[in-house]
């Protein structure tokens, strides 16, 4: 799971992941289990930031602003989501600043 130490981390997306946005929802196909995963609106927002290679700290800041959340709550939600993506090997840290 991402920690406070990783706010500067940039994540890269596993090139084996097939990902598409269909009718406003993001769908992932993971190479390991060959099943589709979907994310909600907030997940889609984070994903778009990952595509732009935004560091985790920036993603949290953008997320907080976009959804008008307290900083702590935004950080917790984003870290949880990034941790889940890492656990499923959908993303991995490209570098730690």
């Amino acid at each position, binding site marked *: 799971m991402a920690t406070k130490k990783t706010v500067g981390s940039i994540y890269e997306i596993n090139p084996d992941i097939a990902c*598409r946005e*269909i009718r406003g929802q993001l*769908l992932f196909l993971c190479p390991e289990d060959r*099943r*589709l995963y979907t994310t909600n609106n907030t997940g889609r927002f984070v994903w778009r930031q990952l595509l732009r290679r935004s560091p985790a700290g920036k993603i949290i800041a953008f997320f907080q602003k976009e959804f008008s959340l307290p900083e702590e709550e935004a950080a917790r939600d984003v870290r949880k989501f990034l941790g889940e993506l890492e656990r499923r090997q959908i993303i991995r840290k490209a570098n730690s600043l």
Partner: protein
Amino acid sequence: MATEIVTFAASGFLGPNRTLRNLERCLDMTRHFQLVSNDVHGRELVFYAQMMRDQRPRLILFGGWCNLYAAMIAKLRASKIRFGVWWLSTGGQTDMSAEVDRFNAALSHDRIRYFAFAHEPFADALSGHRKTVAYLPVPMDPMEFQPRPERQSGPTILSLFCSPHEYRRKNILNTLLAVSRLEDDCILYVNGLTKATCYRRLLNTLKLRFRDLGWMSDVVYRRVLTTIDIGLQISFTESFNQVAAEHLAKSIPVLASPLVPALAALSGQDRRRLIVDSFEDPSAIANRLRWLIHHPAERHQIASRASQRLRDLTQRNMSTARRVLKAWAEAA
């Protein structure tokens, strides 16, 4: 290199999903996806249709048939991808499972060009049909199921493993009646059978000593197999019977009906011990079972020989499957 053959099966089709995953693992010629949603208008189908349009496999092979597949074909109508169906049931199974409508829908679908059957006589019967028909045997890598040493003590563990949609063809009532006739110390392992009220009641009425292991993951299933002494698969009809094959591969003898192709390669003597011709007769089943229980050394030898025969059979099956898929991928 991009995968030339992609396979799909609806998540409700447990057998086809398992078989298609095996096909991928054994031959490394296909890539399998499980369709989780049943929604023919859902995002999942759109996702896969878009992915297929991008990846452009030569052939999409569906496991069995359902409306989801027709919906996917409709979404890919403009593409040059060819479509096929792998029908894993025998004719008898298709009848018993009330799947004749599905079979007919697949057979009459104008975009289904290739039709594979896991049961050779079924394929033969349709060989003159306008579609390209082939026998595509169920793949299995017996190396994944190494023989296990014979257990030396304790009650005899019998297995009767099948999934709920197979109950009608597994001859369960006769099998349970046969087990109830044994005087020996036996425990019957089942995997979810007690969820069906009628069988739970029957197991209790017959006062059978049993253990329901419920649904098992692959890891648990393989571990459980090492504890089994004799498998019971006295089915009314089977296109192959993967469970019987997996038992044999681990050197576990399986008592079966003559309609279980996984035991087709047995030698004459072993066949007489493991195949119950009178599979509607619980006493005949019990007699065979009793002999196997009372002759552990012979049972172990029979199982070792059967295991070797199965390995030869699966090698032939994999060669056949590889040849069929290669020909179809090249032709498509």
